[in-house]
């Protein structure tokens, strides 16, 4: 098997099945053998959701190196490496689109860029997204995937929890409708800010969601945690989230949920295109 052909195959980390990558993409990055949800690239996620009309905002906001951080390699080199690896400029992609005919402000985080950590650019893009949604009277949909605050930007990263919260609150107080979709993994400063400030909090099936990391907790309590701990299903049972959705049903569900917001104080008129669901 040539190297080129081999690169077309990937192994499911859950069940070990070898999957042909184009098939995986066609199946929304869900393993057809075991249902494992692969982490999705932000632009793949957007492509599977929107009505082919995504307009990015804030894409020109790029991170600096406010702390002058160096450990093994300088922070700017890490950023450069992740940019190349992920084809992204930062850990979140924001913009306008419509989903099933419903116009939305859409933010999608990507674990491939610095583990989806929130630094100044992620915070700024999210804040701008909510501000733009407020001005344009759009509902806001945000997909989270994050290891938490980005260490290499220190306290400036932590402060993005405050910044994003202020933008969400202002949007919401004006009557905005906000749906968050927690994907694998959503932890730390992102889970403890805009992820859990939505009107409706959805989670993808089997996503890991929590505040403290699993390892931190295991070290603290010095015992192994049960397998389902911090899973979406666990959180549903504990009352923390509204629903768990399989990826294949996610778009339909989002369209239905968006429709309930059509009469909200801060909402555009109902869609009139042929794409409107019955």
């Amino acid at each position: 098997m040539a190297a080129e052909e081999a690169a077309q195959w990937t192994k499911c980390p859950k069940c070990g099945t070898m999957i042909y990558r184009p098939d995986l993409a066609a199946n929304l990055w869900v393993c057809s053998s075991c249902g494992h949800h692969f982490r999705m690239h932000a632009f793949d996620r957007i492509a599977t959701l929107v009505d082919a009309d995504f307009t990015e905002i804030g894409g020109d906001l790029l991170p600096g190196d406010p702390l002058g951080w160096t450990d093994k390699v300088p922070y700017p080199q890490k950023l450069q490496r992740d940019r190349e690896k992920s084809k992204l400029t930062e850990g979140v992609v924001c913009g306008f689109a419509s989903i099933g005919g419903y116009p939305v402000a859409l933010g999608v985080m990507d674990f491939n860029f610095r583990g989806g950590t929130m630094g100044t650019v992620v915070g700024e893009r999210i804040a701008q997204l909510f501000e733009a949604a407020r001005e344009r009277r759009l509902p806001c949909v945000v997909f989270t995937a994050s290891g938490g605050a980005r260490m290499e930007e220190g306290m400036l990263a932590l402060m993005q929890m405050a910044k994003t919260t202020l933008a969400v609150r202002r949007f919401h107080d004006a009557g905005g409708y906000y749906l968050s979709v927690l994907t694998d993994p959503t932890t730390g400063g992102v889970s403890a800010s805009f992820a859990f400030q939505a009107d409706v909090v959805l989670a993808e099936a089997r996503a890991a969601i929590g505040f403290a990391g699993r390892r931190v907790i295991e070290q603290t309590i010095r015992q192994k945690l049960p397998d389902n701990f911090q899973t979406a299903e666990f959180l549903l049972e504990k009352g923390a989230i509204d629903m768990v959705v399989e990826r294949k049903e996610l778009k339909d569900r989002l369209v239905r949920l968006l429709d309930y917001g059509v009469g909200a104080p801060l909402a555009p008129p109902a869609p009139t295109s042929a794409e409107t669901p019955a």
Partner: protein
Amino acid sequence: MNVIVEREKGLLELEQRIAELKSQAAAQPVDMSAEIRALEAKYAQIQREVFGAMTPWQRVNMARHPKRPLGSDYIAALDQFDELHGDRHFRDDHAIVGGFAKLAGRRVVAIAQDKGRDTKEKVFRNFGMPGPEGYRKVIRLVKLADHLGLPVVTFVDTSGADPGIGSEERAQAEAIAQSLYELADVRVPVVATIIGEGGSGGALALALADRVLMLEHAVYSVASPEGAAAILWGDAARAEEAASRLRLTSDDLIRFGIVDDVIPEPLGGAHRDPSGIVTRVLGTVDGALDALARLPVDELRDRRYRKFRRIGAPPPR
């Protein structure tokens, strides 16, 4: 092992020798003033060496010094305090102490994180690490302050929010997120003071404030140095190295515009003059409240928005 406590040992011995010499001198006719002066000079020199320019890691240890004034020391120094308990749903979280208070005659709602002093108290206070119920108590008290038009004063000192199983089960992330959400648009002034360790989101949940004050040797960090080292290098033992990079000192944070005012500590740290420092902090808080009280509500909330909105924002084009 606290590196500041270690470094203090020589100084404390010297202090004791000076005190002994002075009492000898008072009891005998021999003139010992030269020896005393020499020892005092030596003491001052060592003190300057030890505390004059502390490394970030030393600051972390100073912030964790076992004798450092705690949240409840500030609460105890208020003119009046009526503690209000509980989240109304599950339990009273003792890592958070809050209630009505008077500060320089002004009616306020005061909220402090408290780590506890001795072992029993530390356990009672969960080492100052609040669970979700602690943050839900904060939310409740902030709503109450808003309703009655009382300013909110917080004292922040935690290594972080509690990372236990129960806290995760009861949605720690949601509790912190909602605490931030509540503070974001409250109609009354909020003044937060970082008095010891400002550890991550668990600290910020009490510090989304109109004025953020910080004691000189307090630290305020995106994660505890141990936590950051574990995240970055999978090795919590490299905490000192992490501390040196995280920019967690008051000097750093005032430069970044994250902290509005730094309250100086005596040479050797706040614990060398606990009541003096508590008084100074309360005075500074009172001054900040004076200034904020003059603002119309909309202006207050608008400034709060802009204050945090610009942190880490790219320069406007």
